[in-house]
């Protein structure tokens, strides 16, 4: 119990820290939200009035404290660019980004674990060598490029895939999958490349341990040796990596949503930064931080589930 409380306090401190950093970074950025919206025809009188009405005429730290005050009352403030509550804007986009993240993670897990086992079993054979070099390539190629290649060669050739745009789940389930699978694959590919190596190495390491030899010696079937003993014991480093990967996946959505024009959180963040819409940026950054902290928390709990020797103590 103390563990959970400690974790929660750490979460609060992390969020405050991140919020302050976001604010400080925003103070350095040149540019003004009202002028950026109105463009070069802006009327001086209009700019002044709108700044007053939006509370932007006050010094930065006053605006910030005002926002923090609202925060504790459960109000994330209003977007300057879109004149509506930040919470609503994020909630509208959450299903898209979360679906994307979940599908990517499923792809990563579905591909990595079998591939890792396969490759570990063929250590030093040609297929292992080929997979290792191929995944090296997967890490090296940037996501936006992979995205464009997928759009060009797969998205354009099959009607099933919607490239550019999002079909809501409520409208059509296959449509939603069609619009999300390519971007999810784009995010997943480099992550597969990274996690594949961890899975392969963890399994290799475990397979060389004495208990595996004992199990084999007892005549336990190969499938049970691998899945029940080796895989389970290999999962601890693997889960750590998956925790990191989920954070990477969330970050990956930012780039990929641009490439596939998906109206998710990532695209909102980019728009908000370019229009200097601080309340929205603050809201999204805190949301991402929250997700990452929660995932780490879940990973810690998973350790205990996987290995009863690890106890959730200090």
């Amino acid at each position, binding site marked *: 119990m103390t563990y959970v409380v400690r974790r929660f306090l750490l979460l609060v401190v992390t969020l405050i820290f991140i919020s302050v950093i976001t604010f400080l970074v925003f103070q350095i950025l040149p540019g003004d939200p009202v002028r*950026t919206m109105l463009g*070069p025809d802006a009327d001086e009188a209009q700019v002044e009035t709108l700044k007053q009405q939006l509370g932007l005429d006050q010094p930065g730290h006053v605006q910030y404290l005002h926002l923090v005050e609202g925060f504790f009352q459960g109000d994330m403030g209003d977007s300057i660019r879109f004149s509506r509550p930040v919470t609503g804007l994020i909630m509208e986009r959450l299903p898209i980004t979360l679906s994307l993240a979940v599908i990517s993670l499923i792809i990563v897990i579905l591909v990595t674990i079998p591939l890792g086992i396969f490759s570990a079993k063929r250590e030093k054979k040609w297929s292992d060598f080929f997979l290792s070099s191929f995944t090296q390539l997967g890490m090296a190629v940037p996501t936006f490029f992979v995205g464009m290649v997928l759009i060009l060669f797969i998205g354009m050739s099959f009607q099933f895939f919607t490239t550019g745009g999002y079909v809501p789940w409520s409208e059509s389930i296959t*449509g939603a999958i069609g619009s999300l699978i390519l971007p999810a694959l784009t995010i997943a590919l480099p992550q597969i490349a990274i996690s594949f190596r961890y899975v392969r190495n963890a399994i290799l390491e475990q397979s060389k341990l004495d208990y595996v030899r004992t199990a084999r010696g007892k005549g336990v079937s190969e499938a049970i040796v691998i899945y029940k003993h080796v895989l389970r014991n290999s999962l601890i480093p693997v889960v750590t990596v998956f925790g990191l990967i989920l954070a990477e996946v969330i970050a990956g959505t930012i780039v990929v949503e641009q490439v596939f024009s998906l109206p998710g959180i990532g695209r909102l963040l980019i728009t908000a930064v370019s229009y200097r819409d601080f309340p929205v940026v603050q809201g999204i950054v805190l949301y991402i931080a929250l997700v990452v902290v929660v995932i780490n928390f879940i990973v810690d709990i998973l350790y205990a589930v996987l290995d009863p020797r690890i106890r959730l103590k200090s």
Partner: protein
Amino acid sequence: MRKRWIIFASLLIMSLLVSACSGSSQKGEKGEEGKSEIKEMSVRINSDPDFLDPHKAEASLTFRMMLNVFEGLFNPSPDGSVEPAIAEKYQVSDDGLVYTFTLRDEVKFHNGDPVTVKDVKYSFDRLMGTGTGQPLSSDFVNVEAVETPDDKTVVMKLKKPDSTFIYRLTAEQAAIIPESNDANQNTKPIGTGSFKFVEYNPENNLIIEKNKDYWKKDVPYLDKVTFVFQSDNQSALLSLQGGQLDLTDIPAHQKAEVEKNFTIIEQENNSVFLLGFNNEKKPFSDLKVRQAINYAINKDEIIEGAFSGYATKLGSNLSPIMGKYYKKGLEDYYPANVEKAKQLLAEAGYPDGFKTTLTISSHAELYSDAAQIAVEQLKKVGITAEIKVVEWAKWLEDVYGKRDYEMTMIDFTGKLDPYKILSRYVSTNKSSNLMNFNNAEFDKLMADVVLETDEAKQIAMYQQAQEILTKQAAAVFIADYKTLWGMNPKVEGFKSYPIFYMDMAHMKPKQ
């Protein structure tokens, strides 16, 4: 082991096949819908509106959509003039100081309330900040009073005569909105236009629907218009070809990809695309340097390279689309001439040229396309310009706001009012005189033209003002570029205006 893999793989393939089939049948349905008479259209707009409240909005893209929802006392007309809208007729006193407007009878707001003189007065008071001290526009500082002597008449008294006053009475600058909707105007805007606002989904779309009680009985034809926000040209083009869009602007170099299956419309923009320099900073404070740069720049090459030829060459800060106000013959005042440019630079004391920076915004490709050509041309006369690409927000702050720049490229979007376009160069106009142009003769001319009541004389003065800008080489005025639209061939009724206005009222199925 192996068996399980085979089963898993075949399941995966089957599920993909099933979903692939259902996916294609869906598209088939959409295709059939297209055969029936078109009642709805989807139009692509590059980015979101700035504000839905027409008094707060300023971005041209916002008005491209929202001029369908709002009207002023006057409406813009395709030839660049204005036509009576909420005002049925108007009179101007002989001294040019009193404007009397008679309201049209049957005009109703989208909430069903009739438009009253109170609403008109409220709209102008709101714009001018009367009572609140928070003006939303400086266009009406010359208005002394707005009076409503009876329930059909609005009288506006000016402090001094203003020859271009009525140009400022369209919805772009003075939309008439109901007082009852004051608090909600930015979330649920209400106007009197041919379409009603339905909903706005940030970064997704803005939907408007037919105003059945519109005072012009024969329009609109369409029941619903969806403005779809898509910043990427390539995906917009794909959406047009895929049938998700009925109308989108297309990059000139991609015209060939769509011209076979879609109606192509070339629209004159009334914009001024220019290479500007900070007239206050050395060496640009020297007329000879500015003229040398004008000789160094080959506008035809830029038009060809950056606009694929779809642009009209300019010589001053006004497009030929402004009709009678346009001064002909200035576009070749400085023909491209490297020798002449070098000679002028030498006379100005820069025989070996100089180094400078060209600051452009990253928000549109056209700036970097044109900048690269211009930099090459400048190199030939010895001027080394380094291109500095900055974010739009930074450009607005540094270049536009602080005037902290040497050279830049920008396009000014058109207005109906020639005064509004040219007054950018008045030296006292601190907020929008981006080039820091300062010429006493020009200032005097612009101050006089406002007071001039004779139209022929006004025209002569505007033309003279353009000539001064050219001769003083206030900037390198390059071109008014055209917008190419790709439209669903089953639709007709596209109307082109000299301002950013996508008039949906006349769009109808092709007969």
